């Protein structure tokens, strides 16, 4: 009944290559990955030294692929997405987007944040036009493009509305239109629907899938909601926690558009959830009784002297 093939291969360098080979065979034309994350490590300075948040992340995303990144809270999903976006710098390793090395933010990778991040001093259509204006596109043309994408998210009626007059779901749709209007190579989405209620999220899952089917954008979508990931993704990448590593990958091969409440989606979610549980338990232990659980403490802070080069092999 379940068509999906689970490929629970730990992401050591070798296995990843095998995996990459499988992936390219599946989709002809995807010889060069759209996004290439190579040996990315990142640590943050904390009171007790510098704790690794991401350690040797390797990931490839093919053109037109919809990849969801899941993992327990605090495992570094947002950090990874920010590094890909160029909003944060990795300590070591590199990110290649469309054959170019990522070195700062760029309009080929537009981010959609958890809060819509729309500009309240502009109305809806001017928000959508924002990036086009910066690109130097003339007023008439950018208005046309903006309306076109507002239509895609079914909000063209609200083009003159002010941001504070929109609901949370509408704001996120405007943010999606604003990102799509830039015609980026990739969309990077960081839990864009997590602040919304279940019904709105359900609608937006449909809309996003339809948009994706229409535009064939490459999407990297961070979420902690497994069901959301199963509903949306071609492939789910699960990160482990402290330090964040690619723990497992799952190929989801259900017909689209998928429904959150579909039995197959539910079954898949349960299966992946089981995998995640062990990670979550680990986090819970760390966060809840970090004071009492000494053994866990050692594991979870994973304080590494800065001199040791963890990003080796580059």
């Amino acid at each position, binding site marked *: 009944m379940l068509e999906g093939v689970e490929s629970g291969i730990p992401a050591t360098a070798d296995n990843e290559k095998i995996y990459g080979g499988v992936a390219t065979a599946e989709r002809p034309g995807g010889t060069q990955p759209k996004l290439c994350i190579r040996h990315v490590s990142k640590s943050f300075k904390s009171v007790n030294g510098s704790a690794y948040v991401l350690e040797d992340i390797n990931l490839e995303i093919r053109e037109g692929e919809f990849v969801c990144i899941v993992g327990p809270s605090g495992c570094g999903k947002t950090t990874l997405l920010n590094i890909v*976006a*160029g*909003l944060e710098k990795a300590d070591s390793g590199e990110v290649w987007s469309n054959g170019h090395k990522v070195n700062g*933010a*760029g*309009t080929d*990778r*537009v*981010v959609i*944040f958890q*809060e819509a*991040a729309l*500009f*309240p*001093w502009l109305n809806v259509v001017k928000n959508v036009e*924002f*990036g086009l*204006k*910066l*690109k130097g596109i003339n007023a008439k043309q950018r208005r046309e493009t903006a309306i076109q994408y507002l239509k895609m998210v079914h909000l063209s009626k609200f083009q003159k509305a*002010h*941001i*504070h007059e929109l609901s949370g779901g509408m704001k996120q749709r405007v943010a999606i239109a*604003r990102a799509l209007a*830039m015609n980026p190579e990739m969309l*990077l989405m960081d839990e864009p629907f997590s602040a919304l209620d279940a019904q709105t999220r359900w609608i937006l899952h449909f809309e996003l899938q339809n948009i994706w089917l229409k535009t064939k954008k490459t999407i990297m979508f961070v979420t902690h909601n497994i069901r959301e990931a199963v509903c949306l993704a071609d492939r789910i990448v699960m990160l482990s926690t402290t330090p964040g590593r690619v723990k497992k990958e799952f190929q989801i091969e259900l017909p689209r558009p998928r429904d959150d409440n579909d039995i197959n989606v539910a079954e898949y979610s349960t299966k992946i959830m089981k995998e995640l549980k062990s990670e979550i338990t680990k986090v819970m232990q760390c966060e809840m009784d970090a004071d009492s659980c000494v053994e866990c403490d050692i594991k979870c802070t994973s304080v590494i002297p800065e001199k040791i080069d963890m990003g080796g092999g580059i």
Partner: protein
Amino acid sequence: MRNVAKRVVFFLMLIGVWELVYLCGIWPEYVLPSPVSVGKTLVGGFQNRTLLIGIGISMKRIAIGYGISIGIGIFLGIVIARFRILEDTLGALISGLQTLPTICWLPLALLWFGLNDRAIIFLVIMGAVLSIAIATDSGVKNVPSLYIRAAKTMGAKGWRLYLEVIIPAALPHIIIGMKQGWSFAWRSLMAGELLIVCLGLGHLMMIGRELNDMSQVIAVMIVIIIIGIVVDRLFFVKVEKRIRERWGLTKS
């Protein structure tokens, strides 16, 4: 509506008491004129256009001075927020100067510019510019980083990032500084016009004093108060409310 009614009744009563005290005849006309003669002076001043010209000249001065303050103030605020070294030096200087009453700039203005318009405009600028600079500095520092990150991924950088994102995002702070700056500017304009005799509303008051025409003095005072109220209540309070609402800062 009830508030308006309360106020109208209050002011009518105030005028009534004033008229009563006047009728008692304790003070001579040149110390306490009747409300009626003040009213006549007001109407007469508008009819022979002396008051209108006075208002026009004062408003022109404040428009120039205040306009320049907005430009300089926002620029200073941004560079202070942007460069750490300027924050520690120029920022400290500006906070220090802020404690200095604007009228203390008068001697300096007289020596630099002489007894003329430019000295008055200088006073107006000194009155408003510091408040606007300080407010802009704190506004820029408080811009949600989310806006900046979103703008960056859409290709905003350099001065366009400031023009299109940071300044508008800081507007709720900047408008507070502009409001405060306005009231300082208005005060220093009047101080300047009273002391540097060259037309304007302040000058009209001084003429009233020289002619022992108390009703003219009071009439001009009323005009000054009304302009102050109109700009503060009808303009700034409204604009500030509108901005806070749009920027989603009002609690509903």
